[in-house]
């Protein structure tokens, strides 16, 4: 039996399943979870192209996420520009920003590049706080209502339910997956990987390092900006810490680190772990579970304390996860699984 046909069939089946989910699932909460998952995959996959394939570990991706989200929201809020136009304005803005950042940061390597990427994202965050007439400062922008998506006079969707968001999210996932697949199998991807493995060797082989790093950055930034715009419209609110904060950059990177950098399925795997876990903490599911199995009394001091605080501490989990992953499986879950498979194969021989 041909392995690759089986694989394609599986993927097609999965996709078909995902496409018809909203027909059967009506619970807005379930759809919300799926949308969060899609957003996370799209973010991780976007970072993966620059960080995983080209080896440029940016800790400043919040800059692109935030610029996308802010541009769309600002245009919608103050000029009444509909989001599906605003999104492309966001993309245009991000390309400009990315090229400026790239021309600064790519002269630096390793830890210096990481520091510079953080500094740039912080400058963006502080500017969003201070440019009050444009961004409404620290208060952020609240979109009370999203205009319906119309072509001519026909209303395609009015964004009242979560279903349109579900499909846009799914589209984003497919787009980022598709781009990643294309990068991995094109000459561009080989250039990226050559730069990742040994920059000087790649340079001596005639690869224009600055050019390809910038191409990687622009692809990655544009996709991140799309995810950012999607986030802004879906949540209906942006402010500097939630879309431009250092946490955002770290979370985007974590998706890939935990799943496995430089692999197509790594960010998917990372999201499948991170999103449900942090949601379980956020919605107090873990405390409820502890109460249910009788480990903690709901009205005791500990029970009340957990209920009060555990929901705020989902970032603690990120911290613990990242430490464990770096110490015990530095290539992420995908790398870990591959290593196990390899070992089994060797034992079989």
């Amino acid at each position, binding site marked *: 039996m041909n392995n690759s046909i089986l694989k394609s069939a599986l993927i097609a089946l999965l996709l078909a399943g995902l496409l018809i989910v909203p027909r059967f699932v009506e619970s807005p909460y379930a759809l919300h979870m799926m949308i969060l998952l899609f957003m996370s995959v799209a973010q991780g996959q976007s970072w993966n192209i620059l960080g995983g394939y080209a080896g440029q*570990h940016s*800790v400043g991706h919040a800059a692109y996420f935030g610029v996308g989200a802010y541009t769309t929201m600002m245009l919608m809020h103050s000029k009444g520009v509909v989001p599906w136009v605003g999104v492309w304005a966001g993309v245009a803005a991000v390309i400009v920003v990315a090229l400026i950042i790239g021309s*600064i940061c790519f*002269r*630096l390597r*390793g*830890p*210096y590049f*990481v*520091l*510079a990427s*953080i*500094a*740039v994202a*912080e*400058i963006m965050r*502080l*500017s969003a*706080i*201070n440019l009050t007439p444009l961004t409404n400062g620290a208060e952020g922008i609240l979109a009370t209502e999203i205009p319906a998506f119309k072509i001519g006079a026909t209303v395609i969707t009015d964004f009242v339910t979560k279903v349109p968001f579900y499909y846009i999210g799914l589209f984003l996932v497919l787009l980022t997956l598709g781009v990643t697949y294309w990068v991995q199998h094109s000459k561009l991807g080989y250039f990226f990987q050559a730069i990742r493995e040994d920059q000087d060797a790649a340079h001596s082989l005639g690869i224009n390092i600055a050019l390809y790093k910038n191409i990687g950055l622009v692809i990655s930034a544009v996709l991140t900006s799309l995810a950012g715009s999607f986030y802004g419209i879906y949540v209906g609110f942006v402010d500097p810490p939630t879309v431009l904060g*250092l946490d955002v950059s*770290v979370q985007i*990177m974590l998706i890939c*680190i935990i799943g496995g950098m430089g692999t197509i399925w790594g960010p998917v795997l990372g999201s499948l772990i991170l999103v449900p876990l942090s949601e379980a903490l956020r919605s107090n599911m873990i405390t409820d579970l502890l109460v249910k199995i009788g480990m903690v009394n709901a009205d005791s001091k500990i029970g009340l304390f957990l209920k009060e*605080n*555990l929901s*705020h*501490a989902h*970032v*603690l989990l*990120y*911290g*613990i*996860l*990242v*430490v464990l992953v*770096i*110490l015990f499986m*530095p290539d992420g879950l995908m790398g870990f699984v591959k290593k196990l498979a390899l070992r089994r194969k060797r034992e079989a021989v």
Partner: protein
Amino acid sequence: MAVFLQSLISGILIGGVYALIGIGLTLIFGVMRVINFAHGDILMVGMYLTYMIFTLLGIDPFVSVLITFPLMFLFGGALQKVFINRVLDALAQNQILLTIGLGLIMSNTVMLIFTSDYKILTTSYSSATIKVGGGVSVSTPLLISFLITAAITAALYWFLLKTDTGQAIRATAQDRDAAQLMGINVKRMSIIAFGLGSALAGTAGALISPTYYIFPQVGSVFTLKAFVITVLGGMGSVVGATLGGVLIGITESMSAVYISSGWKDVVVFVLFLLVLLFKPSGLMGKSRT
């Protein structure tokens, strides 16, 4: 003129504390080539430690430095032995991620214990000032903290220059392999360096606690500042970090006065990018090719 002098003096005073933070980071980087992204969070732990000692035992924050310093030294040493030591040969990004993770654990554990409410440590002299003359006045807690900082920095220089352990640390920073061949216990030096770095950060936290809001996320501001300071001074250079700290302090207070307090951090980051671009080896660093 009075405004200029005033902001210059405040800048130098706060710069002393920044220098302490920067020296800690640069020591760790020098000996282990690890960029410690948890540095600000270690400082935050120092702040909460001081706050606890103050509220539970009633010991003045400037006196409790004597307790905070050794405790934070042990804390840092333990961190190095348990976590950092395992990634010394790993890729730079993995080291960075590990310290980011450790920082997240610290800030969120503190948040679980103390909630994210802002805490204020009010001493009798928290808002006191001393008039210097010419319309210039100096905040008393800032002045005291500057004096303590100066004393600690002097003691640290003496330790690094004159004692055997200090020389061994400097040798390790210069060339890890050669130091090992000369019979220096490099692993022990790493633990001491991380301990010292953490103790300095914790002390800086203790010193600013009477004048600063105390909250779990306060660390990230200082982590970023610490990077700016060490890169400005030259990664690994203690003299550079001292100078860098004071320079950043002055830059901040000047731009707060002459531009706006909202933009002062932007000015600092722009300066940081300029240094990275045009003189990545910093003021005192040797250029590494």
